[in-house]
């Protein structure tokens, strides 16, 4: 189990580190978005009720071309920070949640048909966050920790409307394998952290007990100074850990500014990658 966890974490950290070796001229797209929307949370450890409320998020994306295999491989670094504030239908409870979600993906540009471009590839994810229920006594909060391997796909369609270039992009990530932290069915955090009885709190996750889907539909409008990106971000996290069910849906609209860069490598570095 420990070897498995170490291997997974090593993979999750190696992927972004490997990309640091990119040294030649390359295209890079950066985008910083902020947004707000709706969240729906269910955490059986904290409450048998569904909580709904406000969701705010910040998303930083870096999408760049790599030097691997004649430029058909791309890398995406995506950092999402979000906060949630939700109440049950009765309005008498309150839950505050937050999560930092980092993912690094390698994409193979699968095919390009005129206006359509498709990317698919592996993704490493790291997640840390928590939910705090203000009413509870010895089960007030849930820590959310996870390291996952996922598969990610992007479909991109470029077109022009009244001579204004536009892009529509759909990105979907599907978790395949990972490890996650979660207390046992009725285990208290007093046992885990004060008494140090944490055995059984780390779970192997895959499709059978962890459905994690992200679908971002983004729409780029090129303006004079920058490209405006409107993203409809939809996230679904669903776990069954220690016989307890957790579920979180978020739907939000994000607005961001896209910067397209063309990075120039140092001449001597660039020569290493030039075949002639």
């Amino acid at each position, binding site marked *: 189990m420990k070897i498995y966890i170490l291997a997974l974490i090593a993979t999750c950290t190696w992927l972004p580190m490997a990309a640091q070796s990119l040294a030649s001229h390359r295209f890079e797209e950066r985008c910083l978005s902020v947004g707000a929307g709706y969240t729906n949370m*269910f955490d*059986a450890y904290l*409450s*048998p*009720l*569904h909580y709904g409320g406000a969701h705010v998020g910040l998303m930083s994306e870096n999408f760049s071309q790599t030097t691997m295999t004649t430029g058909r491989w791309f890398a995406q670094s995506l950092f999402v920070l979000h906060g949630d504030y939700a109440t*049950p*239908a*009765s*309005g*008498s*409870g309150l839950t505050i949640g937050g999560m930092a979600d980092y993912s690094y993906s390698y994409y193979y540009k699968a095919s390009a048909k005129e206006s359509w471009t498709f990317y698919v590839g592996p993704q490493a994810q790291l997640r840390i966050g928590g939910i705090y*229920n203000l*009413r*509870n*006594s*010895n*089960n*007030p909060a849930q820590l959310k920790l996870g390291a996952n391997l996922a598969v990610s796909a992007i479909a991109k369609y470029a077109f022009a409307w009244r001579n204004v270039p536009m892009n529509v992009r759909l990105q979907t990530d599907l978790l395949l394998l990972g490890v996650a932290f979660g207390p*046992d*069915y*009725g*285990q*208290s955090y*007093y*046992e885990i952290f*004060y*008494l140090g*009885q944490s055995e*059984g709190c780390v779970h192997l996750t895959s*499709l*059978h*007990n*962890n*459905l994690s889907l992200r679908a971002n539909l983004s729409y780029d409008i090129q303006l004079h100074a920058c490209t405006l990106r409107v993203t409809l971000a939809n996230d679904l996290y*669903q776990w*069954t850990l*220690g*016989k307890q*069910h957790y*579920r979180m849906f978020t739907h939000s609209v994000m607005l961001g500014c896209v910067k397209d860069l063309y990075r120039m490598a140092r001449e001597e570095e660039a020569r290493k990658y030039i075949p002639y």
Partner: protein
Amino acid sequence: MKNKYRFIIAFCAVMLSSCTKVEIYENTPTGNFEALWNIIDEHYCFFDYKAEEYGLDWDAVYRKYKRKIADGMSTAGLFEVLGDMLDELRDGHVNLYAAHDVARYWDFREGYATNFSEEIQAHYLGTDYKIASGLRYTILPDNIGYIYIPSFSNGIGEGNLDECLYALALCRGLIIDVRNNGGGNLSYAETLAARFTNERVLTGYISHKTGSGRSDFSSPQPVYLESSNGIRWQKPVCVLTNRSSYSATNDFVKIMRILPLVTIVGDRTGGGSGLPFSSELPNGWSIRFSACPSFDVNMQHTEFGIYPDVRVDMSGEDRARGVDTIIETARAIITGL
């Protein structure tokens, strides 16, 4: 082509296996009753023990109280029925909180002698006692240190204990009075107990539920008390208890009774050995219940209290004279040792 469809079907089956069905209760008297009964059914930790002790049958409780639920009933009526249903658990850690009231089970102390009087205690504590966070302490005329701890909800830090024990260092013995202490934070109770042992000791076991079945529990894990690195008490100690010594205080007594030089004096503690969790009902009422059972070093429950080493009640005669029989007994024990 067939393989392709097989793959798609298999993939969908795996995907669907992660989907979960969650019970949703309606916000009606019936829905709230069902939600409460099921929350307790799936998470309460003393069904087996209480079935043995007094024949608790949670299914029979369902049948008995289901008949009293009607969808047209008033909020107050529903609260009363649900409160009565929870009383069947005979557990002071079980409460139902509504905006207008709190349903509670306090029979563990209300049906017994109080064995404590603040007025009489004031004769011993005086007015110039010292306060170190959650500790009130003084030195009695026969050079015995007296510490009163009204609650384990107020923080007790290492610095507080160093100062308090240093101030009482020349006393011939120590009385720790935890009567009417309804509990609080387990870690504060353990921080205090760590001052009375010179070595790591096994103090009991703790377990938790591993599933919704009434007997689904993890194997009990040992709980140890590490001795403190600060000032440690090396003289006789008496811990005073009554029926209102409950929850974390019950746990404190459970630890202290196994330590050398410690004598428990007074009445049986109130119990409350389950670590409480919280949940809620569709109508917004909050519920608290025992979720993780703890055991003493002999793997016995202390849910219904711990018997003292020296059983003594405050006598009416002493009360009339403004004398605390339990404190006087402790003084005699320390003086006689």
